[in-house]
């Protein structure tokens, strides 16, 4: 159970030494050994690996998840990002139901081409959808949580090592100044846009942030394009915040 899913080439890391919570066999559908998708990993990154409580404020999480969903389609060759516009290249439905659903919307409403528009649209629903996908994969269990008269649903990871794997991997690779594969680069880029790099690189020397910055500056143009739009969306949300 400590070997992260879909990671033959990844070193095994034991990030927590305490006994692992055992997943309820009834809630595990699909099994925790299915490969994690980008939005799944970002979801794990944005929430506490033990309690499932958010590490980030809502709008950053939602925008980050929206960008991760688009990046999944980008990596699958279905869409392309160019100068703030999103172009559908391949109409074939992806295997994953959530990717399928997102792509279907993109195809059905071609009048909207701006990446910013799609980020805003997907951010409205991404949290629930990705949480559902993770639940179906047996990676989280929705739990009611009462805090200050409000009942909220938090998604508690079934396996703390799976949940902690994303940040542990990124943290280690970056601290060792290693090169990142496209998947990890996208994850690190989205994390940086939502400022989760503060968390992943906590206590690391400044040269590590500089390494990440250099990696992202050398990222493929479509990925940089998507990340720039994510940055802008998050910055604008700060500027026009109201309650």
């Amino acid at each position, binding site marked *: 159970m400590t070997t992260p899913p879909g990671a033959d080439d990844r070193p095994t890391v034991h990030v927590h030494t305490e006994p692992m919570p055992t997943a309820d066999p009834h809630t595990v559908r699909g099994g925790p050994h299915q490969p994690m998708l980008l939005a799944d990993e970002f979801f794990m990154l944005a929430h506490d690996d033990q309690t499932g409580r958010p590490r*980030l404020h809502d709008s950053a999480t939602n925008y980050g998840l929206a960008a991760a969903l688009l990046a999944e389609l980008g990596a699958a060759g279905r869409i392309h990002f160019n100068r703030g516009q999103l172009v559908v290249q391949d109409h074939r439905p992806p295997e994953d139901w959530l990717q399928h659903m997102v792509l279907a919307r993109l195809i059905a409403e071609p009048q909207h081409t701006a990446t910013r528009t799609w980020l805003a649209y997907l951010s409205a629903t991404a949290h629930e959808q990705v949480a559902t996908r993770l639940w179906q994969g047996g990676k989280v269990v929705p739990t009611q949580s009462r805090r200050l008269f409000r009942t909220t649903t938090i998604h508690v990871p079934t396996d703390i090592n799976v949940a902690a794997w994303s940040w542990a991997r990124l943290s280690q690779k970056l601290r060792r100044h290693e090169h990142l594969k496209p998947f990890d680069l996208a994850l690190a880029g989205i994390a940086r846009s939502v400022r989760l790099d503060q968390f992943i690189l906590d206590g690391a020397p400044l040269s590590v942030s500089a390494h990440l910055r250099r990696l992202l500056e050398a990222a493929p143009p479509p990925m940089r394009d998507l990340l720039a739009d994510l940055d802008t969306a998050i*910055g604008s949300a700060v500027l026009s915040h109201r*309650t």
Partner: protein
Amino acid sequence: MSQSHPDTVSAVLARGRLGIPAVIFFVVAAAAPLTVVAGGATTGYAVTGVVGIPVSYLVVAAVLALFSVGYVAMSRRIVNAGAFYAFVTRGLGRPAGVATAMIAVVAYNAMQIGLYGGFGAVLSQYLNDRGWDTTWWLCALAAWAAVAVLGVLRIDLNGKVLAFMLIGEFVVALIYDVVMVSHPADGIKFDTLAPSHILATGIGAALVTAITGFVGFEGTVVFSEETKDPKRTVPRATYIAVAITGLLYGASAWAMSVATGPDKIVEAASTDGTDLIFNLVSPHLGSSFITVGRVLFITSLFAALLSFHHTVARYLFALGRERVLPAMLGRTSLRTGAPKAGSIVQSVVALGVLVGYAIADADPIVHLFFWITVTGGLGVLVLMTVTSASVIAFFARTANSDGPWRTKIAPVLATLALGAILTVTIQQFDTLLGVESTSPLRWAFPAAYAVAALVGLMWAGVLRSSRPAVYRAIGLGAESATAPIRTPDPVRQPA
């Protein structure tokens, strides 16, 4: 082409969009009407000794409405429209933009910090009247602590709370006005509304006092991307906000002069200070009406403090994002998304000023509240004058179909009017401060903006030669993230 496709995207994005009333509530609450009526107008009479305060409010409302015509039209065509320096960058170039940004940072800080003096003085007096023994700076520091915490937590006053407070303030002010006008000292006289005051000595002081009362209305354009119909909602909300606050301020300042008699208003304001309006109505109203008014005065000051704090924090955030100021200022809090660094910087500056005033034992109302907020008002006047000129320059170069009234006539008239007010204000700054005409203070306050502008110009020069990528992104705010990989397109098609 869009007819044949479903449009769930637009439907989802339209959720929670703002209408005209919501936008008005947000910006008028920042202007804090009861603060202006009970604090700004009375102190304005007392410090400047000018009786033309009421007509000044009306004149300024008219000028600002004129200014808004071009301002709103241009706001739909640029990115980062929440900040004056974005207009100036697009209209008059990047060096002028950075200079404007520096002026804005000083001006909004001054507005915010000056309000602490008003809050501290008013709250401590309220508490002392009820048997406490406190000082203005203790109360100001309590407010400071609350604002510093709320700023980092990114807690703004809830829209419903603001609306409730705002309506309360309007109702109280209007009741007071009716009471004052129905109990005139020597008949209802319109002396203080006479347009001849516009040409009287000291009018510059009165006009900038009036402008200070409106600061905050310019925030309507921040909401343009969040309104149901930006083309309609933002302009209307702006004009309505200017009109209703202008009428309320003018009417209330006039009503006070009726209740004291126009010849005695300056003297009465000097004696009673911010108590004037409450003292004038208390013989004719139940004590609960007075208490409600005093409490709303305090909450209104606090709402303004918090609102200007957020404004400064966001300015610093936008400038940090552009890397015009240190990138650290562009950092946000992980858990709350607050522009944390900007918020902390503002709080530290405010604390320094407060401690300085407390040690120097300066008067919180005259030396802190009035002097510093009108200095902030002067800065915003500079910003609006330069912005208005930028509107003319921008539309002269940009193809548009907005017609000559919005792109030429109104902006030219507004620039001339604002420029004239600015000139007389600086000429008469001694009257505004209530100091001798030989006092170096009369130059010290305006000089702060000259220094800020100069620093901005020089910094722009440094950026151009040493960090061209940053220089290119000036004025883009959050949008600057896209500058390194795309040619920045600061001009957008109007929504």
